[in-house]
């Protein structure tokens, strides 16, 4: 297939995107049904052309068409087929195309599932998404065309960056972009509400499943990235507060805040303006991340190769999209604060505290990430801001949130129920004390370790108590609606994550050693025996492969084969060997020969490291579970006026009082 066809497809997609952002919005404004009806058609058309372009690029990789410059730079004849396909998004241009394809997929999903939304509102939403797509497509064809030719075509390609030759690359970017771009839906709903001057906040309920789904994807995307760094960068770390990691973490924090703000707006009609603002911010931070990664503005491991024009274009785009939205917000957001009033010790207050801490944490990350720029801009010297800044501050900011976390679900909407709180507090504290004693008996020493166990138990006990309370009080069939199940999964995931993060940090043993064949080293209760290095051959690399036998109390646990690969392009990449376990990972990396037949090796024992990602996966499942809730099923073409009249199941009064 001809790569120029891909270019043509992109140009057609731009035209359709331009129409998609103009026609449906005019239609909604004028009340013209035929114009509004173009929304779905245009969105589908755009999807088809972008998918076509994506397929053509993939085909170029598949067929080793090195006359396409992008393929020549990022592929190689010897590259395994799955990396050839994932190399499509291995660098700037192709990853933008993936970004676009995902945006179009979300739009398509909305077309498929949102047909019962009021037509004018739906048209505005599709129009806003069309505008987002238009900017990105224009960016792609003017500065980052993946279909440029390289003539004469080289015989072989330069090969994909070896760091990216990992299953992580196959999953991490698509999942992450699903999250980033997924926030465009909540964004489009908010802008459509502002454009249409929606008086009621019914739109928030329509928007909630999309926000939860996007946040779930973003969570698992970050988890995949973290695991990738752990496996592939070989430092055994899972989070580095690198600017690009921060760029993905900021929308995650805002997304988490938005999920809760939306719940309040949906159910209590409160925080209407705040929900609008967070909807804009979640997507704004996604765009900001894209800008930071692709403008070369910040020094980072992950930064793409940059050209000045690209940075300027995204900045202008960011300014137009976010600036325009915030201006619209300033002019049209509700002028009155509304919603039901509530008692101080109610669920609303807990959620507001959570929102506050998440938002401030996001501001803290933003400040630290951008501060080096401030130093440069004001000419006061170069400044580094790194883990010692972010880590402790984040811990401090999350403390009130973690403390409040069990009491959000255990509280009631609007009303205070101090009796329930008191009872829950006593039980949670008791469980924390028991967990602390058990941990101490198992050998946990040091305040940091005990703190980790306590905090994790605090959160998990809160969820368990809530589950028991619901089980005892709620009638059959209404015990755990999906929305609540999602909350429980995600909150429990936070507890698991806390345990993993803090215990890994406080209990890990890492050691660089030099060993000759036959040598051994003790790491905790494990013995690592080194049985030398042999040569092996991979598809597109040569490797030196070490053999390390790990024993515990004389019994063999596992044999690991860490590699040091030299790829066809001459790049050297270490491939750690890891034995994963629920309670600990054993990790070996092979370094260099250091004379006399000795090699340098890095050996780790990393307890509880899997819990970090396990917690993340639970949070993701939580986000996805919420989507399934009946509450969000659109029954018929609801008009804004009638949408709130959804009948609630009538429950006994005793239940409403929330007796424990």
């Amino acid at each position, binding site marked *: 297939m001809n790569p120029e066809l891909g270019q043509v497809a992109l140009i057609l997609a731009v035209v359709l995107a331009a129409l998609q952002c103009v026609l449906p919005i005019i239609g909604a404004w004028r009340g013209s049904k035929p114009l509004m009806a173009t929304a779905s058609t245009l969105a589908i058309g755009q999807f088809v052309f972008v998918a076509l372009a994506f397929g053509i690029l993939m085909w170029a990789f598949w067929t080793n068409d090195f006359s396409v410059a992008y393929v020549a*730079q990022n592929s190689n004849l010897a590259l395994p087929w799955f990396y050839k396909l994932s190399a499509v998004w291995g660098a700037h241009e192709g990853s933008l195309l993936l970004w676009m394809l995902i945006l179009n997929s979300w739009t398509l999903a909305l077309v498929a599932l949102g047909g019962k939304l009021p037509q004018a509102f739906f048209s505005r939403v599709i129009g806003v998404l069309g505008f987002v797509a238009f900017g990105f497509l224009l960016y792609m064809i003017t500065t980052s065309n993946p279909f440029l030719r390289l003539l004469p075509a080289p015989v072989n390609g*330069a090969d994909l960056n*070896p*760091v990216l030759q990992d299953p992580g690359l196959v999953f991490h970017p698509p999942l992450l972009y699903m999250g980033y771009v997924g926030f465009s839906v909540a964004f489009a709903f908010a802008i459509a509400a502002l454009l249409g001057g929606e008086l009621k906040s019914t739109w928030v309920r329509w928007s909630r499943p999309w926000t939860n789904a996007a946040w779930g994807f973003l969570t698992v995307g970050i988890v995949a990235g973290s695991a990738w760094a752990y496996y592939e*960068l*070989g430092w055994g770390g899972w989070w580095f507060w690198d600017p690009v990691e921060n760029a993905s973490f900021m929308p995650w924090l805002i997304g988490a805040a938005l999920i809760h703000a939306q719940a309040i707006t949906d159910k209590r009609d*409160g925080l209407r303006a705040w929900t609008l603002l967070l909807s804009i911010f979640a997507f704004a931070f996604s765009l900001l991340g894209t800008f930071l990664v692709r403008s070369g503005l910040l*020094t980072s*491991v992950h930064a*793409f*190769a*940059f050209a000045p024009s690209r940075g300027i274009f995204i900045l202008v785009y960011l300014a137009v999209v976010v600036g325009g939205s915030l201006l619209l917000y300033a002019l049209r957001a509700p002028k009155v*604060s509304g919603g039901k*009033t*509530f*008692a*101080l*010790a*109610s669920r609303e207050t807990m959620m*507001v505290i959570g929102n*506050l801490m998440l*938002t*401030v944490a996001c*501001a*803290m990350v933003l*400040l630290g990430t951008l*501060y080096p720029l*401030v130093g440069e801009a004001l000419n006061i*010297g*170069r*400044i*580094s*801001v*790194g*883990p*010692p*800044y972010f880590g402790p*501050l984040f811990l401090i900011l999350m403390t009130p949130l973690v403390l409040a976390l069990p009491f959000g679900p255990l509280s*009631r*909407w609007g*009303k*205070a129920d101090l009796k329930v709180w008191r009872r829950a507090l006593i039980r949670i504290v008791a469980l924390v004390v028991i967990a602390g004693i058990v941990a101490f008996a198992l050998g946990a020493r040091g305040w940091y370790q005990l703190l980790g166990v306590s905090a994790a138990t605090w959160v998990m006990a809160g969820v368990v108590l809530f589950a028991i309370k619901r089980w005892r009080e709620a009638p059959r069939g*209404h015990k755990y*609606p999906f*929305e609540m199940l999602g909350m429980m999964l995600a909150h429990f995931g936070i507890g698991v994550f806390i345990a993993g993060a803090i215990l890994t940090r406080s209990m890990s043993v890492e050691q*660089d050693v*030099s060993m000759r064949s036959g040598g051994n080293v003790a790491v905790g209760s494990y013995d690592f025996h080194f049985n030398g290095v042999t040569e092996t051959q991979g598809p597109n690399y040569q490797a030196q492969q070490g053999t390390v036998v790990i024993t515990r109390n004389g019994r063999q646990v596992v044999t690991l084969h860490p590699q040091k690969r030299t790829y066809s392009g001459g*790049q050297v*990449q*270490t491939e750690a060997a890891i034995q994963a376990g629920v309670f600990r990972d054993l990790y070996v*990396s*092979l*370094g*260099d020969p250091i004379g006399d037949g000795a090699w340098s090796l*890095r050996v780790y024992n990393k307890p509880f490291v899997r819990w970090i990602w396990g917690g993340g996966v639970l949070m993701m499942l939580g986000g996805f579970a919420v989507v399934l809730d009946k509450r969000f099923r659109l029954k018929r073409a609801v008009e804004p006026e009638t949408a709130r009249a959804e009948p609630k199941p*009538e*429950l006994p009064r005793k*239940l*409403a009082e*929330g007796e424990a």
Partner: protein
Amino acid sequence: MKRLLALALLAFALTLSVNAFAIDPLPFQNTAQRDRFQHLTRELRCMVCQDESLLASNADFAKQLRRQIFDMMQQGKSDREIKDWLVARYSTFILYDPPLAPATLALWFGTPAIALAGVIVVIVLLRRRTRPASTIAEEPGDDW
């Protein structure tokens, strides 16, 4: 376009140096010293591979500084003294933990200031929106 390509390839070449990370066995006297060394060098920035810590970087420069830091530890120098020694030569850019100075006031006090502003907004909101529990009407239905 040529220039663009050259730039892209250059950036590519630069990232390559990142890939191999440091495995650098040093003869520590005991685990406490090893932990202290890892903790210290993790909080220092490599001047050559600027996106890596001194602990992680495989650059020759990082290796040499690790040796220097190791030697200073054997001489009984404190973390503070070692950091001062490095800052005198390479400026505070080498610290991932920027010290409090006029240039970093906004960095260190920014977050507390934002948090304070947030707390004030929330207090105002709660004062406006909350009512004593007794005045709030009971609502039927599942409290979820």
